[in-house]
């Protein structure tokens, strides 16, 4: 009401996020970003212009009504605010932390043209954290439909699909292959960026919706998809198994000791908690000089974890330049603040081991940027004769993942692309009746929020399918 009467004063600067200082945080696994206080959240929320034609919503993969939740926030109606977000997004505490807002909602914010965009992600996180602290309210569920849905994978896509389907009155069972739920949120993203207690709280919420969670079930092995449909009494299946198999460089010496895939490294540290070895049984060995190959968020997570595990020097080696780095700017800044070095325009050509088979050196070649490739980024071209050696005793290869092949190999008739991803229509429907898929298993490696968006869409399509089926 008041907004339309008095012309709002534009506040160009965003309220900064309180963080642990770099010198402190590089020695612990606690969350780096501490979250806004109520005062800070209200201050930041007051910057929103409440545009009549909001651009931010267009940038959100799940179309959260952003101006509406911010308005509720600044009126102090936190309960209504979080409910507004949850109409579209069942995992706001997670998205508020790990979404690349600067490329999505915040990139579209009109305030961004004159100053900082509204910190939408931080406000989302504030409301989600407020809700978690006070305890979740379980939304009303539709009456039971008598239909059963199997969700494969308890990551962002699966958890979202499961929550939506449960709310619609379907009986949902999630089959998770690992011994803990959360998928990449638990095995991939480190504690200091996404505390596991938050993932657990979101999982608990989904369980309260009546979703059953079965851990240690590898679909394709324990049950195949046709068995779930034929013998186990499920009416539909959603596949949200994510990106699995790590990619390697294919250069000599890659199987030496001390060379980890980022997946191995992060699974050991995050899922198996090897930072607390020997209290936890799974070991990890970190040398003094760590090289991380790659320039994405996974590379940043691995580098920053290595530093926290006591590495003296951590160097990120990326074959293109800073501009092409796919990692979030915020994460690159965080990493550099902590003392991580980025070496651009270089790529490993071979690894050299000691007599025990442990890596001791890495030979790299310098790159220069040629014309853009199919990704639109300038293609790195090796500079002849520019090889140089780096002393390293730990290498982490973070150059991407390909889909896990188990479901594709064990499900006859399931259409798959040449990259091994599952073929679906825009609603997640696969080539098999009653079988839907979404997230990285369909798109290849992407973001948490896009996986959630896919889970949501598929849930809607599954609901329609189930209700139209006799």
């Amino acid at each position, binding site marked *: 009401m008041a907004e339309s009467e008095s012309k709002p004063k534009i506040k160009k600067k965003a309220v900064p996020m309180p963080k642990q200082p770099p010198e402190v945080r590089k020695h612990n696994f606690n969350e780096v970003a501490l979250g806004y206080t109520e005062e800070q959240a209200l201050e930041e929320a007051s910057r929103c212009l409440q545009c009549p034609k909001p651009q931010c919503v267009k940038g959100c993969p799940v179309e959260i009504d952003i101006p509406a939740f911010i308005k509720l926030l600044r009126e102090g109606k936190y309960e209504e605010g979080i409910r507004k977000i949850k109409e579209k997004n069942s995992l706001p505490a997670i998205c508020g932390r790990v979404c690349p807002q600067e490329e999505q909602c915040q990139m579209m914010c009109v305030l961004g043209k004159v100053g900082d965009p509204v910190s939408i992600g931080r406000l989302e996180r504030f409301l989600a954290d407020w809700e978690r602290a006070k305890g979740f309210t379980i939304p009303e569920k539709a009456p039971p439909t008598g239909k059963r849905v199997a969700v494969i994978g308890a990551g962002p896509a699966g958890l979202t699909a499961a929550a939506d389907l449960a709310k619609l009155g379907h009986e949902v069972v999630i089959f998770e*292959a690992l011994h803990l739920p959360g998928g990449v949120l638990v095995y991939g993203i480190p504690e200091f960026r996404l505390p596991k207690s938050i993932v657990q709280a979101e999982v608990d919420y989904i369980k309260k919706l009546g979703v059953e969670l079965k851990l240690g079930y*590898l679909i394709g092995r324990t049950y195949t998809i046709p068995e779930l449909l034929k013998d186990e009494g499920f009416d539909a299946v959603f596949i949200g198994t994510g990106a699995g198999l790590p990619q*390697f460089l294919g250069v000599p010496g890659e199987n030496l000791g001390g060379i980890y895939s980022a997946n191995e490294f992060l699974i050991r540290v995050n899922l*198996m908690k090897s930072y607390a070895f020997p*209290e936890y049984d799974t070991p990890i060995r970190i040398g003094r000089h760590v090289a991380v190959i790659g320039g994405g968020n996974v590379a940043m997570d691995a580098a920053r974890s290595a530093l926290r595990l006591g590495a003296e020097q951590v160097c990120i080696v990326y074959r293109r330049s800073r501009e092409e780095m796919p990692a979030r700017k915020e994460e690159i800044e965080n990493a550099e603040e902590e003392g991580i070095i980025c070496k651009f325009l270089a790529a490993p050509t071979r690894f050299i081991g000691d007599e025990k088979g442990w890596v001791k050196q890495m030979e790299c070649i310098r790159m220069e940027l040629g014309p853009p490739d199919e990704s639109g980024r300038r293609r790195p071209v090796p500079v002849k004769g520019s090889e140089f050696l780096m002393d390293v005793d730990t290498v982490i290869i973070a150059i991407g993942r390909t889909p*896990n092949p188990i479901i594709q190999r064990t499900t006859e008739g399931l259409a798959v692309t040449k990259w091994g991803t599952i073929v679906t229509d825009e609603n997640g429907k696969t080539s098999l009746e009653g079988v839907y898929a979404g997230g990285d298993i369909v798109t290849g490696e992407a973001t948490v929020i896009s996986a959630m968006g896919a889970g949501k869409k598929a849930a809607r399509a599954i609901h329609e399918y189930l209700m139209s089926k006799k």
Partner: protein
Amino acid sequence: MKMYEIVRTEELAPKIKLFEVFAPEIAKKAKPGQFIIVIIGEKGERVPLTIAGYDAGKGTITFVFNEVGKTTRQLGMMKPGECIWNITGPLGNPSEIKYFGKVLCVAGGVMIAPMLLQVKALREAGNTVVTVIGARIKELLFFKEEMKALSHRLYVATDDGSEGYRGLDFLKDVLASEKFDRCVAMGPVAMLQTVCELTRPYKIPTIVTLMPIMVDGMGMCGVCRVNVGGQMKFGCVDGPEFDGHIVDFEELIKRQRMFLPEERLSALLWELGGCSCGGK
């Protein structure tokens, strides 16, 4: 019965234990050659163990392990009626079981147990099966009678010659005097390598079961990568069985030792009872 409840334990030889565990879904699906991942507690590691038996009717699976590290020793202390925290499986590709003709089965140490399953399946498929079981010393041999009953012929070997042949050298004569259509080997990597060198001159297709270090065991971490014929293969999703004549065993041996210092430390601290985890 509760999920993953231990139904029966048996000490087959010093520090070699057999567990039968209630896991009906795994029991229904398991096939020879597959493995499981066992986690004994919330803070436990994921340990891959080859399946040594299954009974879909009873809903149980059987596995045998060597009490060498912290986890296996803790596992060995568990009693019937107690439950294992989590078991995932069956994992890996099942063995190729069909009629080959005459098959030589060589098993060493703890892997004698899953070999029994293999021998049984090969026999049922109509093969003539000649089996070799081996161990370091005679006290560590087990399943002799069972193996004898299922095989057309059984050889026994020990490293020190305390029972049967000393080492596997005797196979040279066996292989020189009769023709085999296939060889299946399960056991320590050094033994697998020896068997492959013995069968290579006769070009006998030799299938080895590899158990490299694994973490997830389902195609995520890549630590189980093995060089097979110059290609990178993953033990968990491409294996666990590979053509032994093209496996880079030297590299595999080095990779299996990667975490030896940590494994020793973990076991030592556990023995001393000094770690804060309280043994779970």
